[in-house]
């Protein structure tokens, strides 16, 4: 895809899904430790999310880095907003701000599965 097409395609994934994870591999078969850590967190707290395997298309793999001004994969978007990569999502899970974000944005998750439970 051309860079314009890639940006449009990325924008569409982000707009069409409350939660989108750009990752290496899939939520069932992550192909990178960092991507896998975020899928574990999202699967654990029972959030419904779209997984985009950037390994399927090099233009997406590079395009998302420019799109987000973020040099690595994975990348998490919630309700159209970039949240960060593995480090930040892990921090957000540990300090509870990830579940708080889902609460505020009206994204369903399994409330029994919070760190304090």
């Amino acid at each position: 895809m051309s860079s314009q097409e890639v940006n449009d395609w990325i924008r569409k994934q982000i707009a069409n899904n409350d939660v989108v994870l750009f990752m290496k591999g899939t939520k069932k078969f992550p192909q990178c430790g960092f991507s896998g850590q975020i899928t574990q967190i999202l699967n654990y707290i029972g959030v419904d999310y779209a997984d985009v395997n950037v390994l399927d298309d090099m233009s997406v793999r590079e395009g998302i880095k420019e799109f987000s001004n973020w040099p690595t994969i994975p990348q998490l978007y919630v309700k159209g907003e970039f949240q960060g990569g593995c480090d930040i999502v892990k921090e957000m899970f540990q300090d509870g701000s990830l579940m708080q974000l889902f609460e505020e944005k009206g994204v369903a998750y399994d409330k029994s599965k919070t760190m304090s439970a």
Partner: protein
Amino acid sequence: MPMEQSVLESLIADAFPDAKIEINDLAGDGDHYAAHVVSSAFKGKSRVQQHQMVYDALKGQMGDVLHALALTTAVPQD
């Protein structure tokens, strides 16, 4: 193409002169580091912005030269 720990440290130090920087080599291969950066430059910035500031300091080498950086940032306690 790995990155020397000293190069990583100086790139961050150059961009954040007041920073306290802790770097751990996670794999001994020059490709996997953990870094904790404390700087007043992060004041008022979101976590994403703080990390983007550190990635900018690495002048485009993050993700290419350096494969993995487990990064945590903080503002100094007053």
